[in-house]
């Protein structure tokens, strides 16, 4: 006499059919979890965009502050050293903000608005450059303006590697001479009219490129010491 296990007859047709529904149950469960994840991810990116937006707003306010100081330095008796200090502080601040923006952008999937934020920062840095030029004229200060023109969103391996080298060399230069080097990285392929004019003005042939004190352009860094010497002796 056949006996079925005491835990129930799982060959029963009703139970069998119920088991097949598990495919649909799993699908519904997966869709719910997946959709929840996507929504959470979207809100995470929006929150990051908001954070960068606020930082960008803060930077823009700082820039206006700089411009006001430049216009009113004589009236308000702001010394050249103070203006220089604030300029460098502003440059460091937008450099850090832009680094954070780049990091978020690398991991961004849904929000397209970070590209616009990139452009805003590029414009801020161009304005920073002009502020630096004005300050140098007003105060005859000896700091060097090192403008790094790079491509944003490239795929070529060699170009990426070269840009990494340039970034490292420039950061080394900045760390070695924090009060003498004003480092201004600008993505010159962002489609802005200002960057197009810069490319034309300095006859930028290829990327990446470094404009030193508006005097000459460097396209290769074969030896850091030599590069450092060339930059520090510029405009002497």
């Amino acid at each position, binding site marked *: 006499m056949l006996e079925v296990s005491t835990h*129930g007859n799982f060959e029963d047709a009703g139970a069998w059919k119920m088991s097949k529904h598990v495919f649909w149950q*799993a699908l519904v469960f*997966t869709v719910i979890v997946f959709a929840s994840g996507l929504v959470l991810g979207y809100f995470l990116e929006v929150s990051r965009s908001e954070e960068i937006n606020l930082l960008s707003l803060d930077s823009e306010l700082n820039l206006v502050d700089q411009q006001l100081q430049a216009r009113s330095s004589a009236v308000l008796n702001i010394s050249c050293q103070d203006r220089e200090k604030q300029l460098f502080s502003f440059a460091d601040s937008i450099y850090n903000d832009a680094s954070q923006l780049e990091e978020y952008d*690398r*991991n961004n*999937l849904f929000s397209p608005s970070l590209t616009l934020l990139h452009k805003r920062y590029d414009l801020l840095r161009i304005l920073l450059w002009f502020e630096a030029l004005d300050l140098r004229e007003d105060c005859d200060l000896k700091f060097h303006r090192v403008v790094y023109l790079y491509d944003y969103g490239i795929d070529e391996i*060699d170009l990426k590697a070269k840009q*990494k*080298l340039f970034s*490292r060399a420039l950061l080394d230069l900045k760390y070695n001479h924090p009060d003498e080097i004003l480092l201004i990285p600008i993505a010159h392929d962002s489609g802005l009219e200002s960057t197009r004019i810069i490319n034309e003005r300095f006859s930028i042939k290829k990327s990446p490129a470094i404009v030193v004190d508006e005097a000459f352009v460097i396209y290769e860094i074969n030896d850091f010491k030599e590069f450092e010497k060339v930059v520090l002796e510029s405009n002497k």
Partner: protein
Amino acid sequence: MAFIDFVFFFYMFVGLYMLSLLFLLYIQNRKKVFDYPQGKAVPVSIIVPCYNAEKSIGRTLDSLLKLKYDAPIEIIVVDDKSRDNSTKVVSEYAKRYDNIRLIVNERNSGRAAEPTNIGVRAAKYDYVAVTDDDSTPEEDALIKMIGFLQEDDRVSAVTCAVLAKHTETFMQKLQAIEYTVIAWSRKLLDLVDCVYVTPGPFALYRKDRLIEVGLFDTNNMTQDIEIVWRLISRGYIARMCLSAKVHSETPRRLKAWFRQRIRWNIGGTQTLLKYKKFVFQKGMLGAFIIPFFSLSLFLGLIGLGIFLYLFTRRIAVFYLSSLYSVEAQTTILRLSELSFSASILNYFGIILFLLGASFTFFGLTVMGERKLYRYDTFFNVMFYMIVYLMIYPIIMITGLYKFARGKYSW
């Protein structure tokens, strides 16, 4: 979003779906996964295809002789022209035990199918079991499995939990984890009639059904997969008895393991190509088994391709930039270059990994494989999940290459 991001999301979705399916199957049926119908012990012929197994065949025969089964059992060892002393060992057993027979194949067929078929034809009973020449089924395996064939006429094949016999080398420990999780997963798929293989270490069949469908395919490298797909395509089904266990030898080293997996992969590919015409037909064969196999193959290949592409690019950029930095004598690496900000894909990946790890640990717990619970279990499972499973796409590629070239053997 780039195309690659869509591919990753697709991967995540499929992975999440499979895990959800298995978890739901377990939750809904957890009380009956170890159940089996109590069958009546009837005479069984056990076929043992044998090749160069002088060191293990004796142990296999001993375990078969120890089966607790209240009905006649005949054991037919079919030697595939071994070059060692396998036939001598078996002959000694045949002299001592009336129910052990030795048949020597006139040629070396190079695969298990032909000697198995010889054995099935020579079997005198209506039920035949097949076991490898190095496997040792537990004493109660047969009595637990026989009921499946008797309670439902559609059932023509029954498999059991194939577990690793030894866990001496690190490779064997990883396989022990793999075999245990596979056994559990296979039982869960059994609950929806999706058993797609009756592995060689120990399986039970109705002899008349085997003969009806034409016995095992001698051209297939994994005849144990192919026979089940053939049975299902003819309207029969295979079942799995998780309570019945057989312990199988596993390769001790990476090289032997790799060769074994290549063979399995080639056999799987042969079977897939042979039955591809049944996609979305023939019940669960077309509805789940074929799509599941195809998707696994496809995702494995695509995954490897994408991984290699992205990994190679990253390495190339890192190598070149480091080379330039060394030449120019700048800093080679800054902390700021390491990105710690995660994207949604990273979070999905982490969640999927954690779910997969939970499933693995859960499976080990359910299966009660105590020997796997040692101080190094956590490390072994993590290594299994992160490294061991990642080798599979390489096996797929290698298997496909060998299959395409037609250069493969047992």
